[in-house]
């Protein structure tokens, strides 16, 4: 089955927040009051009922006033840290089309996915004690509709399609930008996590942090260590212990009390 993907061409983002609200509306999220934090950004970060955030960053790049805006949400990694960390079977599923979807029926709310996610995306709801994040509108995609953020985006900063096609478009667009004199333009798609099904085109691909994106995302090494060597160590200790006991008992046997009265 072909992988689906979302392309975010940040050079076309105008920070209109249509994607934010489209997400809220489609997913019937309750609206809450925002906080003022000396910026136009709606929320300080994602929330259990807010899965799609445009991050605003005012800065000077090469002496010119810049105002970078970029949408932030689940990246739908091929090698998903959330899945790696999740203990509950069926709570996080990776669909054949690449969508990483949370099934709250099976979620136990341990929050390991929050720690396992290199992009810091999943959020725990204080009321339901379940974890939530962007589902790439798996319900819409399943019936052949695009995700609601994609549909709303007025400037076509967002587009939806197969991963291969969008990859092609992204590379072409980056090339176009480089030809227009933006030497650092490039594609951001998290090779460290096996590639993401959300692909960014950045004018300043050398500084993804300025867009609120991690520089070199990968599954945290502590999670990898836990799910790899530590797990084997644990198995070795437990089963090794049992085996040793068995051998010991059969070969050596119990200690008799030798100083009876």
């Amino acid at each position, binding site marked *: 089955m072909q992988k689906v993907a979302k392309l975010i061409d940040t050079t076309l983002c*105008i920070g*209109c*927040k249509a994607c934010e*609200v489209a997400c809220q509306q489609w997913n019937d999220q309750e*609206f809450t009051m925002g906080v003022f934090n000396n910026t136009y950004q709606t929320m300080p970060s994602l929330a259990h009922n807010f899965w799609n955030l445009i991050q605003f960053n005012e800065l000077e790049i090469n002496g010119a006033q*810049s105002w970078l805006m970029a949408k932030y949400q689940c990246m739908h990694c091929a090698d998903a840290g959330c899945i790696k960390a999740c203990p509950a079977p069926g709570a996080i599923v990776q669909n054949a089309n690449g969508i990483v979807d949370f099934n709250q029926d099976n979620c136990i709310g341990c929050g390991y996915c929050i720690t396992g996610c290199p992009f810091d995306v999943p959020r725990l709801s204080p009321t339901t004690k379940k974890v939530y994040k962007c589902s790439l509108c798996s319900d819409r995609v399943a019936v052949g509709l695009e995700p609601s953020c994609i549909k709303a985006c007025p400037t076509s900063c967002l587009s939806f399609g197969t991963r291969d096609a969008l990859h092609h478009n992204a590379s072409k667009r980056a090339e176009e930008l480089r030809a227009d004199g933006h030497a650092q333009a490039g594609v951001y798609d998290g090779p460290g996590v096996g590639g993401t099904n959300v692909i960014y085109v950045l004018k300043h691909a050398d500084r993804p942090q300025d867009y609120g994106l991690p520089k070199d995302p990968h599954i945290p090494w502590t999670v990898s260590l836990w799910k790899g060597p530590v797990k084997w160590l644990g198995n070795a200790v437990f089963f090794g212990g049992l085996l040793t006991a068995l051998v010991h008992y059969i070969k050596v046997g119990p200690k008799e009390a030798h100083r009876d009265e």
Partner: protein
Amino acid sequence: MTNGWTDVANADVILVMGGNPAENHPVGFRFVMEARRKRKAKLIVVDPRFNRTAAVADSYTPMRAGTDIAFLGGIIHYAIENKLYHDEYVRLHTNAAFLIKDGFDFAEGHFSGWDDTKKNYDRSSWQYELDAQGHAKVDATLENPRCVFQLMKRHYARYTPEAVANICGCTAEEYKKAAALICASGRPDRSGTVLYALGWTQHSHAVQLIHTAAMMQLLLGNIGRPGGGVNAQRGHSNIQGSTDMGSWNNLPGYLKIPRANHQTLDDYLKANTPKALRPNSMNYWGNTPKFMTSLLKTYYGKHATKENGYGYGNIPKPGETENYGWGFFFDKMQRGGIEGFITFGMNPVAGGPNSPKMLDALSKLKWMVVVENFETETASFWNAKKLGDKYYPTYKDPSEIQTEAFLLPAACFAEKDGAFVNSSRWLQWKRAAAPPPGDAKPDQEIMARIFLRVRELYEKEGGKAVQPLRDMSWDYANPFNPSLEEVAREVNGRDLTTGKQVNGFGELKDDGSTICGCWIYAGSWTENGNMMARRGQEDPTGLGLFPNWSWSWPANRRILYNRAAEDAEGKGWDPTRTPIKWDGTRWTGDVPDYKGDAKPTDYGAFIMLPEGVAKLYAADLLEGPFPEHYEPVESPVQNPFHKNVSSNPMAPVFTGPNDRLGAPDKYPYVALTYRLTEHFHYWTKHVASGAELQSNFFVEVPEELAKEKGIKGGDMVKVSSARGHVEGPALVTKRIRPLKVEGKTIYQVGIPIHWGFIGRTRGPLVNNLTPSAYDPNSGTPEYKGFLVNLEKA
């Protein structure tokens, strides 16, 4: 808009000034992005603030609020000086060659004819020099010093990049860079568009400012061209339609309101039907009698006869110089001259200038009717002292306010059908989806029931002037709740002889045999049905005209003045982007803004104008035929061009108790108000999503000013003007750069609108600050560029 949203994608150069489409028209902005991607169009933003449009622009130039005429006048100078204008276009399609009377002059801030005692112009010296036939004399060489081109060149000779930079506050280098980019659209094979909005209209010199833009676009040969034009983005869904339907000084279809000195229809038509000023001028407004008669016949039905001038006497008439516009009637209301006030979905306390004045004026009313979706500040003005928190401490208690108020619940857009006209002039029909909540009713029912009840009272009791009331036709199938489809058919008009809907205004007659409620809408509902509800996707020209989607006034024409996109022989200036083509017998493509089968050489391209060509020079504007830079009514500096005539000499002056103006010693900072993308006007403060996206009122403060005042981001600040104050947290930003004007450092303070004392999210009304200063031509208040002080609260 002369063109339309979909057409913006055809542009090579896009000047966004006096607007912020990325924030306020995000969906329209997608055509800007399309032009940038597909045509590598250059986006140039000129604005006091580095806004979200600037964030994606190729060029951003900061400017001081209220200095747009200087900026654009400088472009005119730059284009002429560097020969970047489209010479052939200017000669063919503008009045550049027209000769002006000898007495015309400009000196020391005034044009000729200024009467300092009357504070008014005698405009006779501004007129064209006419020949014996009454036609304007021309000099095709453009060499005559009295021709418009030479006068214009001379008028703008002062607008050098250095002089403009000194007024606007940017550097001359920045200015020249922007000018070069803008003037790149002067080539015949390139087109440039201008997108503006309330950043241009909310000035005491707004109409002249837009005239400057039109002049610039004419010089660059961009009017009538795909990807060209002067495009008002407009702020409300049907602000275009309600403008089309008239206001105090217009009848529907931009027919002028009759004045008291025109006692008969003949008088009126004689005075308001223009005569051709050139032999080849089609002078379409010459058909005014057909439009006016058809309208009167629609209004007065069987009571409209040839003998009574089709009921002309019933139309209310202001005196020759009287003004019943916004600023004037609220002033009169404050002085106790108005008893009753009705508002259908409008909120003057929030949206009008000088909220304290609005509040005081409303308190003088005997009665008030507010028809609304939500409770508004206007509806509950009598409770402003309590609800308005600290902002109106001296306002009257409810017990002292004798206004009887009615707040009637209205259906919202989704609960009614009918047509909205967008800024592209497209009439788009919508359908009702759900019933109104509770006992709310559609506006037409509320209005009809009041109207018919008043009429009933007059029938029963008699009273003053029964005839105009009785004669007004209201013969709908259900008069108490007229079907909007029925009304739409009436607006389109029909031939009374055949009983058939007219296909266009060409079929209207001046003998009372046709009716038409708004002549420019003729063709919107023909015998073929509701043209406004059409959903055709075809785009045969490939220019994004979509002739079968909805219906566009006039005559389903998508690009106004499209004849100007071609040269004298009818060949497109740019063969790849020609909206209409002459095939030897007729024009194809867009609906031609021209006679369909007339040869290219038969008429001038601007068929609506008596000149037959576009006006670089317009003697019908109040403050002069050429736009001149005037400072805002409140300004931190005296006009560098003419210190003694600093602001617009024609701007109306009010002298009520709230009409105080501030001086720069007490109010040193320039302020401007504007919208944010997260909210719509004063509506979405009632809506949960708006409350989430921008919950708080805030004030944008330049970093340097904040440092000077010891203000950090999030600190509460108080902004005060001579009228009132607002308080909120400071958003300290680099995006509003300090400017150098006349050697002084000028700080600008940005104040978003959207909040008020009623709503899901609340905050101060920014119009506590704004002055009762208006443009003399349009009556629009000056929200951009007034003076405030800023301090830590």
